[in-house]
């Protein structure tokens, strides 16, 4: 499709304003004014709507396609949460209203949503308190790392390292580094767990924290996780829990009970808020009691009369990590989702998610190399190494899946698995959908043996064929030029 700028026609207008209706003001001095004429596109409303509507039709999405993108929990986003987020009583509220004097009473509805969501998440994870401010999972990690630093600093220590297994999500080491930590990477043992020998060796009085993902990015629950936590605590380090995969564990295990000190959760994964083509997300952070004092301000508190207020007066706080109270619109949807599902619904979600992943695992393990042949949690990770022998790579499998109407699993992640294919079906997909996906995967395995060229040429049914990514990186063309 042509770019919106390529459809520009001087003089068109897709949106108009009323005349100001005020006497003309003294014009702003020319030196403050821009001289150039930005090359924005001018089109009618129809042109704009048709352009973006037709663009949208070029995407795969949960509402149109099975989307088993591992580690991303692409579950269905119930429509009623969109309706709620669209209520003007929520979407129209200026975030500074409760900061006006007496203004708390002007936003009691929104403050209650924040407070109630915090309490729900605390119960779900077994943590003591939550901040809803982090704007995505990685932002939660950074917040968590800063809380950890504040904790150690408060105790007079400046610990330097954060221990992270090599199977972790890329955001973990990146967040730790950005918070000012050096990262010690621990290898994964052949059994699929963090190497305990190496872990023990790395742990010392300079260890600020251990960051784990649980279930980990291989979809596995490490049965020795409590031992790992205890060892860290003995060494005076804190335990960080990357809760992006919490969907597997709702009502089954709680990081707080295991002994974690900091937890972040991806509302856009576990709690069914839409992924929005890459965001917005929301990454609330929960803490054990020893970290509560360090949480970002403002905190939402409940007064004895049941009303809600903002609390700024927390002298140990790390400070401000978001402009206001988090991605409220996202939090609201997650809250509605939790109210809707309730206890049984959340447990059922975890169970069905794990059931679906194991079903895929078992049905496909005769056709693809299963990286660790054991019960998985919410996702299962295969390697295309068997197919590589015929020159078929994970990417070829992915591209052929696209032609069959499936969004591919996550490929080449986790990095520690060669030719990884990481399948996370989520609980919202039916057995019928899984069966036909599995059928296609088996067909692909057959094609890899018998007719690999068919896979290498895919996709053929999309608006473009395979794209030259090297050219994109070597000769960056990152914007339309007039």
């Amino acid at each position, binding site marked *: 499709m042509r770019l919106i700028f390529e459809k520009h026609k001087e003089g068109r207008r897709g949106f108009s304003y009323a005349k100001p209706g005020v006497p003309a003001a*003294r014009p702003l001095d020319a030196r403050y004014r821009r001289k150039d004429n930005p090359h924005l596109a001018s089109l009618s409303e129809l042109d704009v709507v048709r352009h973006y509507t037709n663009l949208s039709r070029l995407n795969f999405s949960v509402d149109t396609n099975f989307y088993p993108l591992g580690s991303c929990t692409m579950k269905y986003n119930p429509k009623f949460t969109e309706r709620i987020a669209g209520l003007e009583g929520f979407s129209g509220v*200026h975030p500074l209203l409760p900061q006006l004097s007496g203004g708390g009473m002007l936003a009691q509805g929104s403050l209650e949503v924040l407070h109630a969501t915090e309490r729900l998440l605390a119960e779900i994870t077994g943590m003591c308190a939550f901040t809803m401010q982090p704007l995505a999972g990685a932002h939660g990690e*950074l917040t968590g790392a800063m809380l950890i630093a504040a904790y150690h600093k408060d105790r007079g220590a400046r610990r330097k390292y954060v221990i992270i297994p090599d199977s972790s999500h890329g955001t973990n080491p990146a967040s730790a580094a950005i*918070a000012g930590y050096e990262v010690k990477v621990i290898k994964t043992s052949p059994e699929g767990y963090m190497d305990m020998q190496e872990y023990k060796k790395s742990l010392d009085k300079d260890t600020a924290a251990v960051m784990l993902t649980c279930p980990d990015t291989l979809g596995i629950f490490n049965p020795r996780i409590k031992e790992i936590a205890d060892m860290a605590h003995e060494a005076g380090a804190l335990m960080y829990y990357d809760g992006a995969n919490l969907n597997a564990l709702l009502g089954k*295990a709680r990081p707080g009970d295991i002994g974690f000190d900091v937890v972040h959760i991806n509302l856009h994964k576990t709690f069914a808020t839409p992924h929005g083509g890459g965001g917005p997300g929301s990454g609330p952070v929960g803490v054990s009691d020893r970290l509560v004092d360090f949480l970002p301000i403002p905190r939402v508190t409940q007064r004895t009369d049941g009303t809600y207020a903002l609390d700024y007066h927390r002298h140990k706080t790390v400070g401000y990590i978001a402009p206001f109270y988090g991605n409220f*619109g996202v939090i609201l949807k997650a809250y509605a989702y939790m109210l809707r599902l309730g206890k049984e619904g959340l447990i*059922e979600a975890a*169970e069905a998610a794990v*059931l679906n992943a*194991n079903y895929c695992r078992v049905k496909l393990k005769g056709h693809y190399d299963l990286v660790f042949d054991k019960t998985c949690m919410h996702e299962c990770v295969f390697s295309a190494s068997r197919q590589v022998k015929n020159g078929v790579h994970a990417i070829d499998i992915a591209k052929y899946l696209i032609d069959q109407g499936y969004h591919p699993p996550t490929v080449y992640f986790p990095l520690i698995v060669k030719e990884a294919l990481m399948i996370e079906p989520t609980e919202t997909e039916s057995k019928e959908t899984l069966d036909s996906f599995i059928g296609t995967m088996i067909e692909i395995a057959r094609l890899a043996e018998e007719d690999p060229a068919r896979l290498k040429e895919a996709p053929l049914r999309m608006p473009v064929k395979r794209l030259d990514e090297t050219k994109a990186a070597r000769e960056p063309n990152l914007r339309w030029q007039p």
Partner: protein
Amino acid sequence: MNYIPHTDKDIKEMLAAIGVSSVEDLFNDIPVALGPKSFDIAPGRSEFEVTQALKNLAAKNATHLTNFVGAGFYDHFIPAAVDAVVSRPEFYTAYTPYQPECSQGWLQAIYEYQTVICELTGLDVANASLYDGGTALYEAAMMAVRLTGRNKIIMDSGVNLIYRTMLYTYTSNLSVEFMEVPVAHGQSSRQELLKHLDDKTAAVILQNPNFFGAVDDHSDIVKEVHKFGALAIASVYPVSLGMLKSPGEAGFDIATGEGQSLGIPLSFGGPYLGFMSARKELLRQMPGRIVGATVDIDGKRGFVLTLQTREQHIRREKATSNICSNEALCALRAVVFVALLGREGLRELAELNYQKSEFAKDALSRVAGVEVKRSSPTFNEFTVLLPRPADEVVYRMVNKGFACGFPLGRFYKGMENYLLVAVTEKRTVEEIRKLADSLEAVL
């Protein structure tokens, strides 16, 4: 459960296929001792009940107030067509376009968004979005630190206080040193800024219009900054760019800002949109996703995520940023909003904000006891000095149906009687007149 399709029969068949006898068996890796100590969540409720409950909560928020509160976050009108586009599930239920062939819609939209940000800011390259204006500014500061290998940052105190506090939080464990320079007569103080500038300076951060609403032309400062090999970072309000000198025109190296004004609802503080653009030489240090144009094997144009070796999923602890999920859907709002307005529309919007704000200045300056600060030109927000604490006045004005502005005393000691008043295109002449009248009545 309406969102879990499993029937009892399905579960039985699937368990049989897996070779276990119950769903519980699948959780055997979790030691019994690690079972939840509590899971005291209320039972689920129907869609109708939850919807009612949340409608009731929404009704507890005051949305009837005529709004003159801004402080970086503005009450602009959102065309219905913006909502229509972003509510396409093909946009909002997709994720990051890792697989380009089945994500061309998203990729092209982001490429267009990047172009819009470049055009608005007058710079060369832009990323696919950051969380918000504050984190964007922080990322820009860190870019400057990496690029220059220096760690001193000079920051004008006209930068939004919310952003400034965020920057301090983020850098509290890093060896980054901030010099904050007070404004003079509302605008950036050349004298003070230049005094601190030296060859240890990584960057100077300026905002236009600044937090007090003052408009400035920073070209002169930027020139000095460059003499010291430091970078100039602009924090900008995108709607003002329909009228004001762009960061590119003023010579800035990096521009960031809050994109909320471009078709994104206020929504109690988020989701918002951090945008960032820079001179192309700085590209490799940019954080976040970037979309590039390329060709497919037939030579047909297509779009991909590119320069991913900057990013966490490849570079891990050596990445330029930890950002993964961003604010794509808000970026989409912005590009659709700008496309609807077009060149003329954005200019008109800026002009309207300016005109109505000037009108409000006039109206308020006629209120006895109210002094409108006029030491510098403003765009759509300005400062007034009241004869009594602004906090009190705001409180009383709520009863008159107004959120009449933001009391600066909440952020600045000694400014207890100052009120920051924002006037967008949505405010009508009648509303502005009534604001003045009501103010007169409560003072």
